[in-house]
């Protein structure tokens, strides 16, 4: 049954894994601009302590998301367990599909 379903629907997990890695990269990228964007702010300026803490957390979460993407990559292409799950949930999720 799983094989029949797999024929019907291609596995796009590689794309989702790329998304996850991109979220991580974006978080790290954003962390580099926190100080410069905050520097000349007129209202709502954050303290140096706040910017330092936020920056460290952004970098940490960026790394976590990239590690998560690598783990999913291993699950998908080394363990191949992701390829056993092929479901289609389009019905009822969006009126446009």
């Amino acid at each position, binding site marked *: 049954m799983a094989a029949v379903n797999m024929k019907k*629907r*291609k596995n*796009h*997990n590689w*794309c*989702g*894994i790329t*998304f*996850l890695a991109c*979220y*991580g990269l*974006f*978080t790290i*990228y*954003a962390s580099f*601009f*926190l100080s*410069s*964007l*905050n520097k*000349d*702010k*007129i*209202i*709502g*300026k*954050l303290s140096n*302590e*706040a*910017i*330092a*803490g*936020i920056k*460290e*957390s*952004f970098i*940490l*979460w960026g790394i*976590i*998301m990239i590690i*998560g993407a690598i783990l*999913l990559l291993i699950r*998908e292409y080394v363990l191949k367990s*992701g390829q*056993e*799950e*092929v*479901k*289609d*949930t*389009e019905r*009822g*999720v*969006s*009126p*446009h*599909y």
Partner: protein
Amino acid sequence: MNPYFLEYTIIGIAGLIFGAALERGRMCFVLATNNMFMARDTKILEGILWAFGISILAFGIIESLGIVPIQAAVEGVFPSGWYDLVGALLFGFGIGLCGACMSGLIFRAGSGFTQNWMQLFGILVGTIFFAFFIFPLTNFLYWILHTIPWLTIKPGLSDYIPHQWFGDAVWGPFVVALIFGVFFLGLGLYLTKRRFAKISKERGENYKEPVITWDMLKFKEAYSPRLGGLLFAVVAIIVFLVSYFTVHKAAYMGVTTPYGSFDAYILAPFINLFTTVGHYKASFLPKVSSNWFQIVPVAIPMTLLVITTFAGATATAILGGEFKWRVPKRKIMFLQNFIGGILTGVGARIALGCNIGTLWSGFLMFSWAGVLFLPTLVLGMYLALKFQQAIW
């Protein structure tokens, strides 16, 4: 340890839970409304009602017991007024066109729905349009902060319903929470029971739905409305408590303001939106204000929460075997979603937030914002549904 690091790191975990709750629970206000109007199916609406009910009651208890003092909770209370009605109508129409609210957008975009990425792009464009044109040209800040009788209520204690009704009584938040919370929970319970009765009648057997199963925990099955609602509430409580106990500033859930930060980060190598002053002179207005970016911090905890929510939704979609790159059959939907996204972005900025930041958090703040936002939001979504039925 740096308290801001602690705050953002824990709120990042809350974002992952939020993403899982959204994606597995299909928590989308538009989907809930469309299913209710078109298919008489209330399953998703039940989840939202449970989320509202549980979280409102929890916030009432937290504030009445003094776990988070009322004074601290009140600092984050929004002003309410005419802009909630106007913004919610525009926002509701926008999300109706896109087929996804702000929570639905995150889980759909994270699950590979391409049109929702276009909606997100529209919101980013709409936010910039509001920030540099609508905000300074209408002197928006003045009309928000200037109290107009019957049209606006000042932020903080003035817009705190327990204070308006019961003065400084510590049990005030609990009583208000009881009124709103029991209403939402009761409605959720009624709709759940009615749905069970309907299914039982159709199947000829007593239908019951488990709140939680192993398959739900392993991401193999969609979450029941009650589990989705409970996780939704847990996330709001984590955000509220963590922000207070780390940086002593209670934070409420919000999704659209972070998109302003995303605009700033994306454009940072080219232009600093936070310091680009837009001194537009408008002679008919009392005073001139600069662009919207200058009144929001460069980062709020919700900025990280939104990113990890996307990550949580994408991860659970992959683990559940439901991730798919979905392109709509009619390519015109991309344009519809882009326009809808702009309306969504502008509407959310006018209303000072979206269905999460103003509607849900409005109730959690015990302000009038949520009460004002709800009717025109539903009207906007209904008009968008009728509009689409007429043109397609």
